[in-house]
């Protein structure tokens, strides 16, 4: 699963670094966390956040801190409620993307970008769920 996560994160990083501001890395991290719920995702969040900041002219560490905080909040939420649901993914993708784009200084079409992120998050979630079932049975 780690290798699969790495591949997905690399693709997300390439897309986000050169093509769009939709926070693909955040979405992949979020979906992976909901599906696998492993601590190594914090390491990935930290490392990919740093690389993302490097290639998108942000202050190093800004994205890492945001990703790590978001993962932590999701894990806190899981102790009380079921998080592996479409509704949860949709809303957290929207709020996470909105917060990320706002905090890092983007000011154009944030709501529409967050909305697109929510749908992409849902598709990613379904895809990763199927892949997990395919790999682990």
């Amino acid at each position: 699963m780690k290798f699969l996560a790495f591949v997905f994160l690399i693709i997300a990083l390439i897309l986000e670094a050169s093509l769009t501001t939709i926070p693909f890395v955040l979405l992949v991290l979020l979906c992976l966390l909901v599906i696998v719920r492993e601590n190594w995702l914090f390491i990935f969040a930290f490392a990919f956040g740093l690389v993302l900041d490097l290639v998108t002219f942000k202050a190093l560490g800004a994205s890492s801190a945001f990703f790590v905080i978001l993962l932590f909040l999701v894990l806190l939420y899981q102790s009380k409620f079921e998080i592996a649901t479409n509704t949860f993914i949709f809303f957290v993708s929207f709020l996470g993307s909105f917060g990320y784009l706002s905090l890092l200084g983007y000011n154009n079409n944030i709501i529409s970008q967050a909305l697109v992120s929510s749908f992409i998050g849902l598709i990613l979630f379904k895809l990763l769920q199927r892949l997990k079932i395919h790999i682990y049975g």
Partner: protein
Amino acid sequence: MQKRNFTSYFLIFLVMSLIIFGASKIGLLRPLDSLGKAIASPFQALTYGTFAKITEFGSNSKLQELKAQNLALTQKLVDQSKLIADNKALRDQFQTQNPKSTNLIEADVIGAPAFIPGISVPESLILNRGENDGVRIGQAVVYQDNLIGKIVGISSFSANVMLITNSASSFTVKTMATQSQGVIKGQGGGEMILDNVVLSDNLQTQDLVLTKGDVDTSNLGFPPDLVVGEISAISKNPSDLFQKADVKSLIDFSKRTKVFVVVNY
């Protein structure tokens, strides 16, 4: 997953992120930052170039050709207008001009933050040229004689260009036919307005808007007579102090993969 377990991971990586963030903000990580960008920029250029080609796939090639011809003709029109003005100035012995050659550095567009194809237009571009190539903050970025934007961020191997349509962009301009002066303000989303034009001036639709020129002693700023765009609509109200106009750039920023930085004027 145990709560205590993931809390310790969270705290460790949050503290590390914040330390790096602080160090980056005060400039301690600049060499590392530049090295990382140098390594990443070829990959970004490749990806951006590939996606730019994909978005062009299926578009009308005849239309693209006509657009290119239109740009070339516009450039000739501006050159001609400038020549006429130069000749007039010489004849009148009012002033003499000795135009310096404009030195350009060619740069590849390797990224376009805040850009989603089909949803939004780019607000800024990342170039594969930086401080080591002679690029400085404040220099103009052009394509042919069309103004693209201004360098606002820089590292050793890359630069960040704020496009003229960015909501933070604002500079003085003049119109080509009527020589009306005003301020062009980016509105975001690919829009610009020409503002602060006095009511007594005459604006015309389809008139070209050119930079007035604000190059300083360090050779930074916009050279004069670069094409900013074309007036598409005019808003003139007698009760207002100034009249306004919508201006559309002749360049499709989302399809630009190569631009030029004006390093000396």
